[in-house]
């Protein structure tokens, strides 16, 4: 479970990462041009073997962050470095070779699988692509081993995706992603399309596999409960920015940002007796095209003051916590504008 502390160099770093899209507001040719800031300048580090959870409502930029990390889209500003080198974004040879080291797990496993190929062939496909040196028999053996590791029976090797249950399909996707022992997994809502009973099985499987193989992961979910089970560290996103960061226990039990507090209060609590008063957010869900000035959360914030409307709060750190809120920073006292202390971050898994 414990991340590799020997190497202080983070596996993945994002600095000033932003992705803006030019859009045209409704109105045909006369429509006004506008900028959709899907991701608007975020920084984070991911240590080897660490799992960073990324939480937020849909449209907050989680999935765009995943695409940026994987090099699917080019950042409008800032950069992503993987093992010290910038991640290529051209889908060329270097990009493809890097897939040996970073893989993805999708929300919809049926969509991510080829319905015309038996699952064993799909699990072995990364080997076929990246390890042409392996013989057919070796690949078959490795596929069988992977199937066992994710809890699929050997007799299911010749099955097609539509013959399996949702949970089994996600196991196939996981086996395929792990075929080359990648160092980084990007999981985009990996269990949100599954039944609740199956969700727990798949999450347990992922935890298990992580303990065995030690991959690092960027774990994206809208579900705080899921993130708490998986992540060593949580970052909360709102309108393309990280508004709070910390260990799962701290973020969930002592949220500093009003937005996180609202998220936590809305989540069903496992302890019925300790149910907190639910904070209901005012106003419409955020529109990333016309983000408000100042703190982008202020129109919905129950405690906003005049300063929030004009001045955007920076993300300030104190130890392993970070928050971007004028009020929380004033109350907490210790938050200081410091660069990311990446060594400090890796202690979070304990």
């Amino acid at each position, binding site marked *: 479970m414990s991340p590799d502390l020997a190497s202080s160099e983070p596996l993945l770093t994002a600095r000033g990462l932003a992705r803006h899209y030019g859009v045209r507001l409704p109105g045909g040719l006369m429509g006004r041009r506008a900028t959709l800031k899907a991701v608007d300048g975020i920084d984070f580090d991911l240590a080897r073997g660490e799992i960073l959870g990324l939480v937020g409502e849909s449209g907050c930029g989680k999935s765009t962050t995943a695409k940026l990390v994987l090099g699917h889209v080019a950042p409008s500003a800032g950069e992503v470095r993987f093992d010290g080198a910038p991640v290529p974004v051209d889908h060329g040879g270097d990009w493809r070779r890097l897939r040996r080291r970073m893989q993805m797990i999708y929300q919809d496993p049926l*969509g991510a*699988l080829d*319905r015309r190929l038996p699952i064993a062939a799909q699990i072995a496909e990364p080997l076929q692509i990246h390890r042409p040196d392996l013989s057919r028999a070796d690949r078959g053996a490795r596929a069988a081993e992977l199937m066992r590791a994710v809890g699929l029976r050997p007799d299911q090797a010749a099955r097609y995706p539509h013959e399996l249950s949702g949970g089994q399909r996600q196991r196939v996707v996981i086996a395929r992603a792990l075929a080359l022992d990648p160092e980084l997994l990007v999981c985009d809502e990996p269990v949100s399309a599954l039944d609740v009973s199956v969700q727990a099985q798949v999450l347990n499987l992922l935890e298990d596999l992580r303990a065995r193989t030690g991959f690092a992961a960027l774990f994206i979910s809208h579900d705080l409960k899921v993130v708490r089970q998986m992540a060593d560290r949580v970052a909360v996103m709102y309108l393309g920015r990280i508004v709070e960061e910390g260990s799962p226990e701290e973020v969930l039990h002592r949220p500093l940002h009003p937005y996180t507090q609202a998220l936590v209060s809305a989540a069903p609590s496992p302890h019925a007796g300790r149910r907190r008063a639910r904070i209901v957010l005012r106003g419409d869900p955020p529109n990333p095209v016309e983000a408000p000035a100042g703190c982008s959360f202020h129109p919905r914030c129950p405690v906003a003051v005049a300063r929030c409307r004009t001045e955007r709060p920076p993300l300030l750190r104190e130890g392993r916590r970070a928050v971007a809120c004028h009020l929380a920073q004033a109350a907490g006292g210790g938050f200081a504008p410091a660069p990311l202390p990446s060594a400090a971050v890796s202690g979070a898994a304990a």
Partner: protein
Amino acid sequence: MTETSSAPASAPVSASVFTPKSRVRAFFEAWPPLILLALAWIAAMLLLAAFGDLVAPADYMAMDLRARLAPPVGMGGDWAHPLGTDELGRDVLSRLIASIRISLTIAFLATLVSAVLGVSLGFLAAYFRGKAEQAILMLVDAQAAMPFMIIALAVLAFLGNSLTLFTLLMGFYGWERIARIARGLAIAAQEQGYASAARDLGASPWRVYGRHILPNIASTLLVSMTLNFPEVILLESGLSFLGLGVQPPETSLGAMVGYGRDYIQSAPWIMLAPSAAIVLTTLCISLIGDWLRDILDPTLS
């Protein structure tokens, strides 16, 4: 549970009464009689094209000047020339077999060429998007705007005629429809996820398109190829009819009709036999194509 356990016990009893009839019915529901007839006709045409020389009464170029314009059996002729002879005394049945062979071969090769061309350009458009896609779509539009018959005539006028060139030219028929379909399906496939998932594994574009997308859209492409095939036969026979397609001494169904039309009054059988072959063959392939489309791909209009 009791229902499932009792069913096998009662099954043999009822099976002895009903099974033969329902099997027959199920068979004809899966294979409508019209489709069976169409398939039989196409099979016969293919067999004739492949082994017709064994059946043909004479060499298709051999002239028998004593038996010119001999009528077929049933119109006063004899079994030496079952379908009669033409103006040079050549056996119409033998010429028909040779024509079927060449017309089907041209149509088959041309359909293959247009499928390869269409799929390649459609995939290129889907893969590159942007400017390359716009350029390909512009070509598709321009091709669709011009009747192919006219393009073919112009090319034949400028570049001359040979069997290879003619077959290749026929291969340019219908590529734009296949390109449109292939592009649409490939783009849809990319959005569906299995293709982008394969790319995420590090698969090269060749692999993504060849191993994943192509097999997934093959049935739809096959249907549109089947529907392209009879149109190529019609186009080829039209040009050959005008004397601008397959050139003598080679013959094709359209060429036979074209030369037979001068004898429409005295010897209509020269032209009727190949006409019937064209109509029946295109009809059967169209029926099979529609049937395949209904089975394999109900979404294709």
